[in-house]
């Protein structure tokens, strides 16, 4: 599904990813944890081509996304991404946010897209907010709309970059719930998060990153309870 080989990413002279190897299989939920600046977001952004890479290969469903012959837009259609800051389009209603990509890319007709959007809004519990503007929603509601928007393209893979860390505590739960439902339905997910509860309960595997490297990876219960590396232990002590 996702295969990353020796991925190197630099910003100027700063090497942010120092040769990452990673595989995610279909239906797997992978959590990435690690201190600030360790390169988690950058890794995620490389996966759907939001960052150009300086070395290595990224294969999505067997296609090398760094190959200039591949249409990166086609690949992206297949990878949903959810951002920490929601990034809803503020000039469009909730419904229009969700319908935009399928309609503009000619994947669905307007009517089909609308039907699909309403379905998805139902799934994330916001069927009554279809015609509302994003600015009128709470953070948790906005993030759920953002998830629905990504799902509207029927992606095989969903990437989440700290989807709950910009939320007030009382709204974290509702977003995590939507993500749990997604995981249960078999979505392949890569989630950068500091929500250890979620990671333990939902993920199949957890990766701990530090300084641009994958320091350790394991089943969640093992990584949390018996970290092998000192750096992992330090990090877990600080945040738990």
């Amino acid at each position, binding site marked *: 599904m996702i295969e990353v080989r020796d991925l190197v990413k630099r910003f100027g002279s700063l090497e942010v990813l120092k040769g990452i190897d990673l595989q995610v299989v279909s239906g797997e939920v992978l959590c990435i944890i690690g201190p600030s600046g360790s390169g988690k977001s950058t890794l995620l952004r490389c996966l759907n081509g939001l960052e150009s890479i300086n070395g290595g290969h990224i294969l999505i469903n067997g296609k090398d996304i760094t190959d200039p012959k591949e249409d990166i837009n086609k690949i*992206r259609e297949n990878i949903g*991404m959810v*951002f920490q800051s929601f990034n809803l389009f503020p000039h469009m209603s909730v419904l229009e946010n969700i319908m935009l990509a399928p309609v503009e890319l000619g994947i669905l007709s307007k009517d089909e897209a609308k039907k699909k959007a309403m379905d998805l809004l139902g799934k994330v519990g916001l069927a009554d907010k279809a015609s509302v503007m994003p600015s009128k929603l709470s953070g948790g509601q906005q993030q759920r709309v953002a998830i629905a928007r990504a799902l509207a393209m029927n992606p095989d893979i969903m990437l989440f970059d700290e989807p709950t860390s910009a939320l007030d505590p009382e709204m974290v739960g509702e977003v995590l719930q939507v993500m749990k439902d997604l995981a249960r339905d078999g979505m392949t997910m890569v989630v950068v998060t500091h929500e250890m509860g979620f990671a333990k309960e939902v993920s199949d595997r957890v990766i701990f990153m530090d300084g641009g490297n994958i320091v350790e990876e394991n089943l969640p219960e093992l990584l949390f309870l018996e970290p092998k590396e000192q750096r992992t232990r330090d990090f877990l002590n600080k945040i738990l």
Partner: protein
Amino acid sequence: MNIIEIFRSSLPVLLEGLRMTIIITISSLLLAMVVGLLVSLLRLSGKKALDFLAKGYIDIIRGTPLIIQAFFLYFGLPDLLNLRISNLTAGIIIMTLNSGAYMAEVFRGGILSVDKGQTEAARSLGLPTGKTMRKVILPQAVKNMVPAFINQMIISLKDTSLLSVIGLGELTQKGQIIVASTYDSFEIYFIVGVMYFLLIKLLSLLGEAVERRLRV
């Protein structure tokens, strides 16, 4: 003659000039929006050469007085290239090129003021650059641009007064022609000034109204 009589007798000629002023302002502004948008996109293209070209154009326009641009375009270029352009055409071209450069920076500012997350969200949905720009970025940019845009409209309107040097019969020139035969310079320039003032007041009120509506 008192000012009211002068006003009454000069009004038809001045209104004709005002009409010309408005025609030039509006048509050149519409064209300048197209030029400005294109040039701002060149500047934001990420391609060094295109950015350089666009920046050069903007620098030249901003680095020289409009009156010199007008002389150059109306007298200098046709002389060299042996072509003929009417002063109305020349006036519109000059104003378009001039406001186009400023408008490009207005567009660029508007586009850059849109949060980067918006582009990333759109791109990550698979939307190509063009569609991202048209559907997501520009609608938001335009909203942020309104004050700068109105400001540029006002500047352009005032700048048309310079086109009198290339013989264009806009408001200022009509005033000058009347003064040249009646010598009522105080009254005529006062009236002409008031006309510009009202037109600009109208523009800025309009602008504020648009801004208020967009903010909601």
